[in-house]
């Protein structure tokens, strides 16, 4: 289950995170929910590295190979002579391979980004509509009910306006 404490103030939210960590919540289970990005470390320490750019590189390689196969391969398998030129066109093949590379790199980046973010996310989540207006949420994922009271008290003590959960109302 997930608990979401809503704060008006960034300092309060940051205090809440510190108190939660001190109370024994692993930092991986805590995250901030905001409508505006804050630099890593303001609320939650940033992750070291993402992995989506591997899909960018993978897409680029695949796209370049695909573009090459499309331009050079089809000309080679279905040759038609034009203007005393060789069947396989060197520079145009490069252009098509380049465009294929860029297309698949863009698609790969986008797919990788969504996968890394865990989107699309269709699960029911603890949410608060006012976060869109600038309130700051601190969400804690709990494995079971045992620590629920501690977490709720810590959040409220730090100045949370209210606490939302992902349970059905």
């Amino acid at each position, binding site marked *: 289950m997930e608990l979401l404490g809503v704060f*008006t*103030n*960034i300092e309060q939210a940051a205090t809440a995170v510190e108190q939660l960590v001190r109370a024994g919540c692993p930092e991986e289970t805590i995250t*901030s*929910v*905001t*409508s*505006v*990005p*804050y630099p*890593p470390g303001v*609320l*939650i320490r*940033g*992750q070291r590295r*993402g992995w*989506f*750019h591997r899909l*960018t590189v993978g897409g680029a390689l695949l796209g370049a190979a695909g573009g090459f196969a*499309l*331009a050079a391969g*089809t*000309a080679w398998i*279905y040759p*038609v002579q*034009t203007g005393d*030129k060789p069947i396989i*066109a060197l520079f*145009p*093949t490069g*252009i*098509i391979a380049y*465009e*294929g590379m*860029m*297309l698949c790199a*863009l*698609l790969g*980046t*986008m797919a*990788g*980004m969504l996968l*890394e*973010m*865990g*989107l*699309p*996310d*269709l*699960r029911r*989540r603890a*949410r608060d*509509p*006012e*976060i*869109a*207006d*600038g*309130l700051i949420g601190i*969400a804690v994922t709990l494995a079971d009910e045992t620590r629920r009271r501690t977490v709720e008290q810590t959040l409220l003590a730090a100045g949370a306006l209210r606490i939302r959960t992902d349970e059905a109302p």
Partner: protein
Amino acid sequence: MSTPAEPHRDGAAANAAMLSSTGPATWRWYLLALLLGTVVTGGLTAFSYQVMTGMVVTGINRPVMWGIYIVNFVFWVGLSHSGTMVSAILRLSQANWRRPILRGAEAMTVFSIMVGGLFPLIHLGRNWVFYYIIPYPSQYGLWPNFRSPLLWDMMAITTYIIGSSLFLYLGLLPDLAVARDRAAGWRRLALAMLALGWRGTAQQWQTFGRASTVMACLIIPVAVSVHSIVAWDFAVTLVPGWHSTIFPPYFVIGAITSGVAAVITLMIIIRKAFHLEAFLTPLHFDNLAKLLLIVTALWSYFYFAEVFTTWYGHQPIEWEVFSFSAGHYPLLLMIMLLGNSVVPLTCLLWRRVRRSIPALLIISLLVNVAMFIERFLIVVPSLSHKNVPFLWGSYRPSWVELTVMAAAFCGFALLYMLFAKFFPIMAITDVREEHEALRGETVRGRTRLSTLIDEE
């Protein structure tokens, strides 16, 4: 920026102001939509008439086999360079004044490349078999000819349409979530689906930031390649006046010129229409105008380099094209030089002009009129006076071509209007991120300074 006590009240007000365009449509909105829709319908009718009758209804002839349709193609593809240049380059250079401009410029990219991509299909003699150009396995045992620049065009424009749409969508994602949380009814459902369940967790924001940078890095070389390829449509031919190595960079600079000018025009309209004076300040226009000043200077340099080389070499065939162009279209040539070079280079030097909205509106429109003429003067005179003097001709667009062209402009405006009605036209989270950052202050000596260096 003011620093009210309760940040979320400020945030709510900013959200409301920036989402005002998505409010209920007024009768004026419907009237404008009707008007634009009528012109688009007129264009579709004219195009149908052309398909049913043949290319004889256009002004195309031998030797001028390409006319205003191709001029439009180059022009619209040029316009589409606004989004990538303003948005991606400024994103990478972390210029904070980009923030309110991003969305409008990115949306413009997507719609203008869509409109531009239609023109090569409109201009085909047999539009109904356009799919012969698409590479797909068929029983003909024949694939398209990748040696043809038109195939490069097709690949590049497909890449650019997909890439710029993804780029637009990427920037839109957090804003969709904001709009979702403030919407109701079917809009909420549609926005919720498009937002894919975005929450704005720390991890999501971090990945989002990295992906934005990567996408910006990827989209810039695509944009450059797109207009280089459009230039190669002309440069790789044997046509005197077209066959020039300077064309790709010249076209790219021209594209950025018209793109930046169009962004200024659109921002002025958006600012006025949606009452966003608080977000789009004279400072933003000042910066955009500086950008325009630089690119028009570059354009002038390229133009001079091209004409100067040809004039000095004075090869009879090439010089014939240039002198025909000057002799037959002196007015157009003059407007082009004034609009692309003289007026922006002199007027935009002055800070007062750069910060005057009416002056910028006139200058930015003039630049784009001049850019359209520039494309015309590249396409048409070269074809009019090719190698064989016996078959020299000229070209005048017919009413069918002009109607289709008017429909393209109105269709673009209509798409833009609809986009603004359903999606956030301002980069909400980007703008508010800056507001938040400005709130962070530090005491230094006897004063309090913003942690963010400056808006400029």
